[in-house]
């Protein structure tokens, strides 16, 4: 038996003499360590979710979107992005890899007597790639469709299922306004993209019909007439959005400036907005770092409290075991031996607390999901008022949080164990022996 092993065994034995006291001390460290891991995991989960939303819009993308100015500014003239803007951007900005003109309008789609309200999107073939739509059946739009202004359409998953509940939609026709469109493909359903601020709103890709933008222009024109009771509104705009994909991530920020200049030259109204997911991503990362730092601080405080618990209990132990220390000293224990013994006890407490804390930390994800499930079941109304992030966050284990938490627990044990251990060793053996 090596010396270290014996010291360890001895300390475990002493700690087991007071199981409740040891357990409570361990609990202090457990809460601290589990807290570090939980807070870091939840912070990471929220941060990741935000980043994924932003990255979903494409880190290489620049989104220029039409914003409707106030009614008296528009009058009857058109507003928003124009086809000329699109052509100018493509022609003058060399760092642009792809640019997609998009026009979105609300329409009723019909298949015989079946009707379905949805969004009709005029776009180019690149739209599928940039918005990450994948074909479930058939194909997406092609350059040929665009050039020929074909009456072809691609249905989003839900649109397809609602218009063609039985049988294969491919090759069938749907009616939009007075025009027939032949279905050439159906896309897989895709997670809705969240609104991330700026001019980019949340998009739900399930109720769409995609047609070539050239076809939209010739068949539907640029004018939308909205009739509501007591209101007759005309809406003249050429494009809803231009999504630009830049050749390289590093080129995004310089390109943004050029894009802003290019568009600003031809717009007197503030009828468009530029959103840069990369900028938002960088902001989100900074915010996340601050957030994690803050959470880390809270966890650190709880660890210090746990450490003080260790110190408290060790000091009490030293007083209580003065006679034992005296006996050991009288029988030949050096000061060093006594220090080691008490330090070992403090470290064992903190390491056990640390290991349990890591286990508790690993359970963060299942437990928080379980709790959230219960809460949603029991208090649906109250839960509905909470922010989306709180309701949907999935804690992500941060790999470095485990060694960090463990190291901290050991450091806490040593730091807060040293003083009581030294006090124990400084006791005078004769005095200690007399102690009752």
């Amino acid at each position: 038996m090596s010396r270290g092993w014996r010291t360890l065994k001895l300390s475990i034995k002493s700690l087991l003499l007071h199981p409740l006291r040891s357990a409570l001390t361990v609990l202090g460290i457990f809460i601290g360590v589990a807290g570090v891991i939980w807070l870091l995991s939840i912070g990471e989960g929220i941060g990741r979710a935000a980043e994924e939303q932003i990255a979903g819009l494409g880190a290489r993308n620049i989104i220029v979107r039409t914003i409707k100015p106030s009614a008296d500014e528009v009058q009857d003239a058109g507003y928003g992005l124009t086809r000329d803007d699109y052509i100018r951007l493509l022609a003058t900005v060399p760092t642009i890899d792809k640019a997609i003109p998009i026009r979105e309008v609300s329409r009723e789609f019909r298949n015989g007597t079946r009707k379905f309200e949805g969004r009709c999107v005029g776009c180019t073939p690149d739209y599928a790639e940039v918005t990450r739509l994948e074909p479930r059946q058939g194909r997406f739009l092609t350059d040929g469709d665009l050039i020929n202004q074909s009456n072809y359409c691609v249905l989003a998953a839900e649109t397809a299922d609602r218009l063609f509940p039985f049988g294969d939609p491919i090759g069938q026709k749907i009616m939009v306004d007075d025009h027939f469109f032949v279905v050439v493909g159906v896309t897989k359903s895709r997670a809705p993209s969240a609104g991330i601020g700026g001019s980019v709103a949340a998009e739900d890709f399930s109720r769409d019909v995609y047609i070539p933008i050239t076809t939209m222009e010739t068949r539907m024109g640029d004018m939308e007439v909205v009739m509501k009771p007591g209101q007759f509104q005309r809406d003249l705009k050429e494009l809803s959005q231009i999504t630009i994909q830049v050749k390289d991530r590093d080129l995004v920020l310089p390109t943004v400036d050029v894009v802003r200049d290019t568009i600003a030259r031809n717009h007197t109204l503030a009828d468009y907005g530029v959103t840069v997911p990369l900028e938002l991503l960088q902001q989100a990362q900074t915010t996340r770092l601050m957030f994690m730092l803050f959470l880390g601080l809270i966890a650190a405080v709880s660890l210090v409290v746990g450490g003080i618990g260790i110190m408290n209990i060790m000091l009490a132990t030293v007083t209580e075991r003065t006679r034992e220390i005296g006996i050991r000293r009288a029988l030949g224990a050096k000061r060093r031996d006594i220090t080691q013994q008490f330090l070992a006890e403090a470290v064992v407490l903190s390491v056990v607390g640390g290991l349990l804390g890591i286990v508790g930390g690993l359970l963060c994800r299942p437990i928080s999901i379980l709790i959230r499930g219960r809460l949603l079941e029991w208090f649906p109304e109250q839960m509905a008022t909470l922010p989306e992030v709180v309701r949907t966050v999935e804690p992500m284990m941060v790999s470095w949080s485990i060694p960090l938490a463990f190291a901290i627990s050991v450091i806490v044990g040593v730091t807060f164990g040293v003083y009581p251990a030294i006090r124990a060793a400084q006791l005078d053996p004769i005095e200690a022996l007399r102690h009752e």
Partner: protein
Amino acid sequence: MTAVATLAASIRELRKDYVLSGETVHALRGVSFDVPEGDYISIMGPSGSGKSTLLNLLGCLDRPTAGSFLLGGEDVAKMNDDQLSETRAKRIGFVFQSYNLLPALTVVENIEMPLYYGGRIDAGTRDRCVELANLVGLGNRLDHRPSQLSGGQQQRVAIARSLVNDPRFMLADEPTGNLDSVMTAEILDLLASLNAEGRTIILVTHENEVAARTARTIVLRDGHILTDERR
């Protein structure tokens, strides 16, 4: 015992002062005597005479204020704390009035403890501890805790523990102070047999019957040696 016998210990002009709430207490005021190898000495004296102080010094639990204490040729007065600890662990067997066993440990573990600090634990350790337990008549109580033993049995465990390092120099602080006459006799028999093996024993007592069993009695008073008589 002859004058040419080698000395187990030699005490010269040993002084010990304490400062108690600002006042200096002279516990020992110059004590000198020699302890030949294999001697059996009892130290007597009224309380406050300095006998406990002397025993603490002899047991290397404390250092004298002045004077010298040679233990097997080494001056204990000049040792540092670690060397004192090592001397206690390896060369001195100490028996206390109140046994001073650790309540959490079994008989064997208690006996084993000094080895733990002498750094001499090996495969034969347990056998040796069992052997010592047998020697003091507790072979059938190996895994008992001190609280399960009588006072006499506890003192025998303490004696076994003091023997585990095979010390030549044994100290006992009123080893029979808490025991009845039957157990006292048992313990004194045990000590006598250890002395017969050649071990030097010094014990502190205030009972004349106990002192009568030793070969030599030193009486202290007010920090001085009053008498030093060999029987």
